[in-house]
């Protein structure tokens, strides 16, 4: 689809806006509707739009597959780490008050970190689901597996 000028121009215009809106939803999530889940999906949607226009290989040059797997784990670990940090500093699991001196700042910092972990994991997992579907055919052909998919019949 790289040859279609309208698609390319519109996508190049839209992708930064989608990403910016994703970041807005991410960091405004503590006061208004939003948060890690929605922001992660928005961010992944921007990447999927990029892949639809430029192809999966270009998309994987932006974020290699290994990095996506890695990010999916890092997000969960960040969530658990912030949760356990509260336990180590003398509170309960996911208790943010012991993190910093000011309770208000501690609550905000904790929720932002936790939501950031959620956002990273959700974005990475949505990208992974899309990637596995998109490259399945190519991987099977490379491995020499052919299917009765009705195209040759």
């Amino acid at each position, binding site marked *: 689809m790289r040859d279609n000028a309208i698609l390319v121009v519109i996508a190049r215009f839209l992708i930064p806006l989608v990403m910016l809106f994703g970041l807005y939803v991410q960091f405004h999530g503590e006061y*208004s*509707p939003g948060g890690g889940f929605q922001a992660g*999906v928005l961010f992944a949607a921007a990447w999927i739009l990029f892949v639809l226009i430029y192809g999966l290989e270009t998309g994987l040059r932006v974020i290699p597959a290994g990095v996506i797997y890695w990010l999916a784990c890092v997000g969960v670990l960040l969530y658990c780490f912030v949760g356990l940090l509260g336990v180590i500093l003398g509170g309960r699991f996911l208790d943010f008050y012991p993190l910093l001196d000011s309770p208000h700042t501690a609550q905000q910092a904790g929720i932002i970190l936790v939501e950031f972990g959620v956002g990273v994991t959700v974005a990475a997992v949505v990208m992974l689901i899309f990637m596995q*579907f998109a490259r399945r055919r190519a991987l099977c052909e490379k491995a020499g597996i052919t*299917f*009765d*998919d009705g195209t040759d019949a």
Partner: protein
Amino acid sequence: MNILSLFNYWAVIGLMMIGYYCVIVRGNMVKKIIGLGIFQTSVFILFISAGKVLGGSTPILRDGVEIYSNPLPHVLILTAIVVGVATTAVGLALAVRVQEAFGSIDDDALDRHATEDEA
């Protein structure tokens, strides 16, 4: 309380019936999954509407706000949305495998395939 004040619920009924129609009438598995998604959305709207308290604000503790909307349906639906994404992914993966094994994801074509195998 007139008929328009229940607009959310009319939208729920409409979306639910559209989704149901897609699931039972279309033979194409991908279209069935799309129908399932529309059906799910109607259930989400039903729950969120039920949790809204008129004049209530977002359930965040702050000064000058007395009435809050019920946050429980929101949490339930957030979980349901995530589960919906997962079930859609599993359904699509199954459709891919069916396509690879039988060369079609259409119910009628698969029926013909099965009867040919029996014969």
